[in-house]
């Protein structure tokens, strides 16, 4: 099997560009989802969004975070799971704590 040098290089370059593009957007997305979870928690505490919305948002966030390889993802997913349980218990103190945790996670990204 033969492969020309130029062709190889072009493919490699393309792959690298693709990886660069993807990894950047996923890291971005992860950070954006952490911010979303924080904001959603705040809004829930203020009584501005229903519990069902927070659950659905956590589902979407979890699905998106699962796909990324961003370093923040595992911690964010764990916190999201805790938040789900906290809103189900209507545990406002726990949600307030989790909002702070999301804030610090977001700051670290």
């Amino acid at each position: 099997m033969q492969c020309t040098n130029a062709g190889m290089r072009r493919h490699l370059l393309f792959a690298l560009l693709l990886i660069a593009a993807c990894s950047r957007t996923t890291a971005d997305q992860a950070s954006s989802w952490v911010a979303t979870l924080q904001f959603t928690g705040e809004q829930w505490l203020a009584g501005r969004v229903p519990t069902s919305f927070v659950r659905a948002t956590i589902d979407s966030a979890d699905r998106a975070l699962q796909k990324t390889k961003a370093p923040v993802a595992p911690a964010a997913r764990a916190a999201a799971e805790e938040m789900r349980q906290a809103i189900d218990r209507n545990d406002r103190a726990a949600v307030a704590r989790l909002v702070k945790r999301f804030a610090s996670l977001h700051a670290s990204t």
Partner: protein
Amino acid sequence: MKKAMTLALGILTSVGGFFDVGNIATCTQAGARFRFQLIWAMLLATIVVIFLIEMSGRFAAVTNKALPDAIREHFGFTFWLVPFAILTVIHILVLGAEIGGVCFALHLVTGLPLQVWALPVAVLLWLFLWRSTFSAIENSTSLLGLITLCFVVAAVWHRPPLHDLLRGSLPSLPSQHPANYWFIAVSIVGAVIAPYLFYFYSSGAVEDEWDASYIPVNRAVSVIGMAFGSVISIGAIIVAGVVLAPRGIHVDDYHQAALMLTSAFPFWGYVLFAVSMGIACLGAAVEVALSMSYTFAQTFGWNWGEDLAPDEDARFCLVYTAALLVGSLFMLVGMDPLQLTMITMALSAAALPFVAIPMLLLMNDRKLLHDAANGAISNVAAAAIVVLTLVLAVVSIPLAVVGGS
């Protein structure tokens, strides 16, 4: 008196037609990611759409023919076949995205998953089309559509820095994420210049029996109506830019956009967003489904008209029925509504030459239009628009691959 009514209604309807799922998606993405920096894209798209809507209305008023009708008869069936097929696919995708918007709004209110709502929404839309007349559709969607003004109210309430707004009104290069920036810019244009608008608007003018005396009314409707719709969309960009951007929230999912009104309207914001989105998409879905029926009926010369009873134009009704069924499938199989919207907007932008070029050629036919044919200003604008649509057609799909997050 009738013309004054037409004017008022036309303006309201065009607001309804302007602000739909594509605008909600692209404007919130633009604001969340680039604050006010993409307002220029909305302004540019608005100018283009004003020219094109004005032309399609003028054409219908003078010739008594809607666009698909005129294109088939003027250029022949074989010429029209390819654009017709492409536009049919786009219609179905847009309809799917609009139904997705309604489903998402219902999901926000009820907490039930989107799949559950796909068929009920399709049935609701179908009943609406089956039972009502054209003017009933016009009146109800336009009045209910006024709820979307809440985006403008919220934008004003947030007191955005005027200096930044003005700077965003002029095109500028992004400091980061250029591919995403251009992708959203193209998507905004694709969302605003939706192909169905022109087929729907010109067919509506024929249904309302416009004649040449409606040319000034048409001009006013297109300028004021589209500008009004644009103000709402810019409102959405501003609110997303003020609420979401500073928090680092991007809109990769409609749930993230749903949070944008709660700062301005603490207790109603969440519901207002859901209701605005639901009504805007519902109105647009009706227009898209009708536009599809108009296009088919006119292409094949069937009897058509939303004012006829269904047993007088069975095939016309069959088309929107089938379109609604196919359109609801996207949500039924669990596609993400935002992703569907963004893909659709990119394809829609890619298909624009098929809309713009035949229209430009028709508008220059003096045998058809006599004195109402395009003048120099309209033609310079039209030529610029054709160039723009050709550029968009070339760049939109590659950008969607590289820049679509």
